[in-house]
């Protein structure tokens, strides 16, 4: 709940049979100036085409979000009841997360009116003022609000964080927990996720998890994507001693950020041991194009006495200190008669090809080494 999503005011506006569009209640009082309302009223109490739409209008340094409602019935003067319960924020606020709240509120009020004339009845309408107050306070402080209105209706609202769409999960990706797995109450997750959780160890890739947990591949993919969305896991690549990595500019973060240093040393040290910053940094810097992890192990055996190389690589990938260099075979020469290459186009890495065809790296290497028409790019 950041202050950047602060709601400055909640208002209830309606079309009065004689006075026209007006603000009946607003919390805090007098927040919306006469001038502001005049400017935007056409977007608050609207023509029929705009009703039931989420409308956000920006004016005079403020953003107003509302959803105009129209309920038609003979019993109303002018045969229709028009109202709008909206929020006011600063113009720079990112208000996407507030939109579902507004929509839900308009739904609640509509239901209340249809069931018991909550709004058209002058007496019950007055209850709106304390309701608006409570809403404003609770949404700003906790981001959630549960408010019983009458015997049969309770308002439940929650501000949901907007997140980026997660990456597509490939079968050769390896999910690794960013937080300690044990911190989660497993029973809160769905069944599929619970079933695969024991196999998410930061080393098994999606295909392997699917096989060992006996869960269909696509279900595993979706479950992991869900975990990715909530930033509970991140994806790294399959670990092999033949892998090649190199440093990124972010490796300097290890020097600049004390907390990262601590986290790293804690993560990569062997059980019961504690390594030091120089050794770890030397190891990361020892990862260069052309150097395999196996090479690293033989060159830096002293530093690796206290470091688990698999954890070292894992941490480096998770924090973006290093990146994996993948091999991409490309068929460059072919005669007219042969089929166009399907996998050796430069678009598919060894990881992907091996996963899809079931070959091991060694087998693929042997196959391609002797083919003069194929070059291999690393990137």
């Amino acid at each position: 709940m950041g202050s950047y999503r602060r709601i400055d005011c909640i208002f209830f506006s309606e079309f009065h049979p004689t006075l026209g569009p007006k603000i009946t209640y607003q919390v805090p009082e007098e927040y919306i100036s006469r001038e502001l309302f005049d400017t935007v009223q056409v977007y608050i109490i609207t023509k029929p085409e705009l009703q039931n739409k989420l409308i956000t209008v920006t004016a005079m340094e403020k953003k107003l979000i509302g959803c105009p409602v129209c309920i038609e019935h003979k019993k109303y003067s002018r045969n229709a009841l028009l109202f709008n319960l909206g929020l006011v924020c600063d113009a720079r606020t990112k208000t996407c997360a507030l939109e579902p709240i507004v929509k839900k509120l308009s739904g609640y009020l509509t239901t209340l009116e249809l069931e018991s004339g909550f709004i058209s009845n002058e007496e019950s309408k007055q209850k709106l003022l304390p309701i608006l107050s409570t809403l404003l306070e609770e949404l700003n402080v906790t981001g959630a609000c549960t408010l019983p209105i009458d015997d049969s209706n309770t308002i439940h609202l929650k501000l949901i964080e907007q997140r980026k769409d997660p990456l597509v999960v490939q079968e050769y990706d390896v999910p690794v927990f960013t937080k300690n797995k044990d911190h989660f109450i497993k029973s809160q997750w769905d069944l599929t996720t619970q079933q695969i959780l024991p196999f998410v160890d930061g080393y098994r890739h999606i295909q392997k998890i699917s096989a060992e947990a006996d869960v269909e591949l696509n279900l595993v993919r979706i479950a992991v994507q869900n975990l990715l969305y909530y930033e509970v896991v991140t994806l790294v690549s399959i670990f092999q001693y033949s892998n090649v990595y190199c440093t990124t500019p972010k490796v300097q973060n290890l020097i600049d950020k004390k907390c990262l240093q601590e986290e790293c040393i804690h993560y990569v040290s062997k059980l019961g041991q504690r390594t030091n910053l120089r050794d770890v940094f030397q190891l990361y810097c020892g990862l260069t194009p052309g150097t395999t992890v196996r090479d690293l192990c033989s060159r830096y055996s002293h530093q690796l006495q206290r470091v688990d190389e698999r954890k070292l690589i894992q941490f480096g990938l998770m924090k973006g200190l290093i990146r994996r260099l993948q091999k991409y075979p490309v068929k460059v020469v072919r005669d007219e008669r042969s089929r166009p290459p399907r996998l050796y186009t430069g678009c598919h890495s060894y990881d992907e090809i091996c996963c899809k065809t079931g070959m091991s790296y060694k087998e693929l290497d042997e196959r391609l080494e002797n083919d003069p028409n194929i070059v291999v790019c690393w990137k």
Partner: protein
Amino acid sequence: MYKQWSVDLNADAKLMWKQSESSLQPNGEKTSPISVILVSSGSRGNKLLFRYPFQRVSENTSSATSKQRSPYALNTSGDSIEDQDGDSREQTPLTDEQLVAGFSDIILATILATKSDMCGKKFELKIDNVRFVGHPTLLQPPHTIQANADASVINCMHNLSRRIAIALQHEERRCQYLTREAKLMLAVQDEVTTMTETDGTPQSPFRQILPKCKLARDLKEAYDSLCTTGVVRLHINNWLEVSFCLPHKIHRVGGKHIPPEALERSLKAIRPYHALLLLDNEKALLAQLPLDCSPALVRLIKTCSAVKNLQQLAQDADLALLQVFQIAAHLVYWGKAIIIYPLCENNVYMLSPHANICIYSPLAEQFGLQFPGHDLPSMLAKFSLPVSLSEFRNPLDAPVHEAQLIQMVVWMLQRRLLFQLHTYVCLLVPPVEEEPGLREEEPPLVTRVTGRSLSTPSALSFGSPTSSDDMTLTSPSMDNSSAELQTGGDSPLNKRMTETLLASLTEHERQAILRVPAAQNPEDLRLFARLLHYFRGHHHLEEIMYNENMRRSQLKTLFDKFRSVLVITNHEDPIISLFQSPPD
């Protein structure tokens, strides 16, 4: 029979861009407008003057498909708010047309014709999945853009709105241009309405407006350009030029756009030793410039080269360095150039992780045409391991091959297939645990990292901003050059300077450095101490060379001598790597 419509001189006109919010459209779509709309409001009411693309009028029921809607129907189904669960199921996205069709001409005229007190400021209105952005002013056109778009995209669209608006306002004052165009538009609309009434076949009035009305054509062109290249160049009334670029469209690497703020930050960090690499050839670029462009720009384009750094460029083009920086930033912003380190044989290049190495890519084809007999994947494979240009060359090759090689490297750099690796150095002394009793507590200096434990040596950390500000943009820091300290030998002055420079280290670090055999040589120690502030992993070799006026071999020798307290790594320069790949 035509009704005469007149547009008041005091009327408001708005040109609106409309964009959809659908997050299911591919990324490119979020930066394109759905539609451009021109609305006027005055004493005679609100009127929609023009919109593009045209709304498709529903066909006769006999040929209607289930998706056809009457232009006046509201679009209610399928307007799902973006899926917050990140569900990757494919939903049928609403076509832009359907979204636009949901807003009739009349309703658009009503909602977009704002009150006069909203004039002169950015106007932003979001209705469900559609966002309108514009700049209503007296006689000024607004735009509408996507609800889901980045705030910076919105700002850019608003910017374009405003520019067109300013041009229109100017032309209106000068020769009532907008009034005339608006009259034309309304007249045509009227004609079409009359014809529809008599013929019975519905037609879009806006289609008829296009051939008759220059402003409509300009608006259509702006829309089309924004959707494709992201570069807009119009001549309002064939007179005033309005040019604009949407950086989000231009700066796309690896499928993601580079946000303008990141771009601007990088541009501010450019140094005089960087070079400007044009992305087009000189002739093509010069042809694109407007007639009244600055002669400095022309001179710069003619003089720049991949082997020349900005400082040399300033001298050769007879411009101030600051001016060169500004023009360079301008060219980069417009997607016409990128910043690199000047080409030289010691440069080490590697394949960029974002490079498209597919044999079917258009790049592969272009490469084959440009350099017959060579194919791109084979060339790229050679850069799989970092390779310097000097290693790459075959000394037995004819000079023409070498020239071609340079051309190929430049070609690949322009298409962001390669990036350059630089060497970065970091001071990290071995830890103390081997000698537990010797550590002395030092009063912590403000610039040091605090709270170290016994067994963890701290890396040298210069948190204070002033030390890094020595690297000024405008001139190499001659103060730190070797000139002063060349008095040689063990003079007390020199010794004291060395001591001062080493004073900011901890006792443990100082001891470790002094234990290095090379530290016995006062010259070496002095040099090391002087360069100490570069050894925190943020300054690459070439920068040290430039700032300190030193040769590469000198530095490399020094690093070698002190390797027991230094850690060296190679990676791309984060400042200019922005141009190679987008930030995370």
